């Protein structure tokens, strides 16, 4: 191509550009609330890792519309997500936000808090402490991972503590369980009217569980509690809604394998680099991000297992 032709080609291309559709990354999460029971809505994120491509929308949030207001379960990974969640709630109901819950202190569950009325924000005391102590570091890391999707996102610590037990909020009968194991405090919301359990990150479905703050024995005990609840449907923290207990069974099986693999590796004297080379069993090979999460989990969990083996 001659320089002149090249110039023409470039000019034509430049003229075309404004006519092309907008870059898909317009910072719109395209949140679409899905009604899974009367008055119960979920927004299902991808089963990916945080990235600029997904803006951090790898998480499930939800809301329950009561007679006198709306109960929001987790606010997402960014201010933009929180704002868009609030806007999408307004397309479903004009009732006010009555309660905004952060199920635990991981960043994809509370960094949308800014968008919600401050006096509705609530969490367990341990989760509030976790957001206070680790929230800033999480937020900085989320800027690094998700880029400009995070613009303007700041940590907002819930001001109200949420008690465990049965209660009525905005006219809707709810039950809160204070469990733990994924983190030091994992809140489960049960909507008895519809038989829906919001299991938060105690349950993952077709996506490998994450363990940066995990205590696996406590987590397994929490799964026992969850499995005993008579419910119609289960909303995991990550992955699709399920009409049965398959996600609980899968999360349990993975965590048992993980804990057993790590304990046995430490008892056999494996170095961490050898532990990292453990093949993923066929039963878990199809879980999203399983290779990445296994690597992370070894980093999180192996030092304590090694120490137990050395100090036996």
């Amino acid at each position, binding site marked *: 191509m001659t320089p002149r032709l090249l110039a023409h080609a470039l000019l034509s291309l430049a003229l075309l550009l404004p006519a092309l559709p907008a870059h898909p990354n317009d910072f719109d999460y395209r949140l679409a609330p899905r009604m899974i029971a009367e008055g119960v809505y979920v927004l299902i994120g991808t089963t990916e890792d945080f990235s600029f491509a997904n803006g951090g929308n790898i998480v499930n949030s939800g809301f329950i519309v009561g007679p006198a207001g709306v109960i929001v379960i987790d606010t997402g990974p960014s201010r933009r997500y929180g704002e868009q969640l609030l806007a999408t709630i307004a397309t479903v109901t004009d009732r006010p936000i009555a309660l905004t819950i952060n199920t635990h202190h991981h960043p994809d569950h509370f960094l949308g808090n800014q968008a919600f009325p401050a006096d509705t924000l609530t969490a367990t005391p341990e989760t509030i402490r976790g957001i206070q102590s680790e929230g800033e570091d999480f937020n900085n*890391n989320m800027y*690094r991972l998700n880029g400009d999707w995070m613009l303007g996102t700041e940590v907002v610590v819930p001001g109200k503590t949420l008690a465990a037990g049965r209660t009525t909020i905005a006219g809707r009968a709810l039950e809160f369980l204070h469990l733990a194991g994924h983190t030091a405090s994992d809140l489960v919301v049960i909507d008895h009217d519809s038989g829906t359990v919001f299991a938060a990150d105690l349950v993952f479905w077709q996506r490998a569980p994450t363990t940066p703050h995990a205590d696996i024995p406590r987590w397994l005990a929490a799964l026992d509690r969850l499995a005993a609840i008579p419910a119609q449907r289960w909303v995991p923290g990550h992955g699709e809604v399920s009409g049965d207990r398959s996600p609980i069974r899968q999360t349990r099986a993975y965590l048992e394998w993980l804990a057993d693999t790590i304990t046995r590796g430490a008892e*056999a*004297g494996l*170095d*961490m*680099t*050898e532990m*990292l080379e453990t093949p993923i069993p066929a039963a878990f090979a199809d879980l999203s991000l399983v290779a*990445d999460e296994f*690597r*992370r989990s070894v*980093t*999180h969990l192996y*030092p304590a297992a*090694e*120490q137990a*083996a*050395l*100090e*036996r």
Partner: protein
Amino acid sequence: MRRPNLPLLSLALLAGLAPASAADLQHTAALQAPPHPIVDPLGSPRWDDMRKLFFGDAPVVFDERVRVTAPRIAEDSMNVPVTVDASALGDARSVVVFADFNPIVKVLEFQAAHARPSLGFRLKLQQSSPVRAAVLGSDGTWRVGGTWITATGGGCTLPSAGSSSPEWQERLNQVSGRIWSRVDGGERVRMRIIHPMDTGLAAGIPVFHIDELALADDSGRTVMHIRPYEPVAENPSFTIDLPPGAASGGKLHVTGRDNNGNRIDAWVTP
């Protein structure tokens, strides 16, 4: 930044190492044409600096038999697991490990007197970096292997957990360890030493690290000698393999000291 300090390696040179294998000699032959510019397989812009710093004018080759195993992505920049294994080289005895982009590049040196020339340990990474091991052969040639590790960083300038807690002071230099029998008839030793391993790069916290460690059998014969530097992770843990018959008796004696002169003295048992 401290200047490189290679007394162990000089010692190894003086003592003379076993003859290189035929494959080693081929590599050496390839280096006959001075000034032997070699292409860094890791493509690090710091390679030339590293080369000058660690090897001066000595011949250097990249050699895949110097294996550095580490996760491609470090989940925790304060504790990045690495295993260096030069046993495929035959008689490799002295090894130096460095990370091109760390503010303190030299991580550790070890001399596998009677142990296998391999070592598992953890290090702190300040940012993504190659981590390399270099082995000095009896022919005077350095053989270098390595791998890139992606890290979010901060590992060297963050305070240790120990520096903010008084508990470590009571347990400073305590060793927990264990010996396993290996199927080849040899033994594996794993040990962990309580120490903050402060780099001196975190504001207000002076440099404080273990700088000398030796593992001996119960006849007093040294089987492994390690010189850790600042980038070794807090509460250092090491994995060492002994070939069959390398150590007499069932237990091993760990001795050493930190840069403040605090002693390490413990026995590791099966």
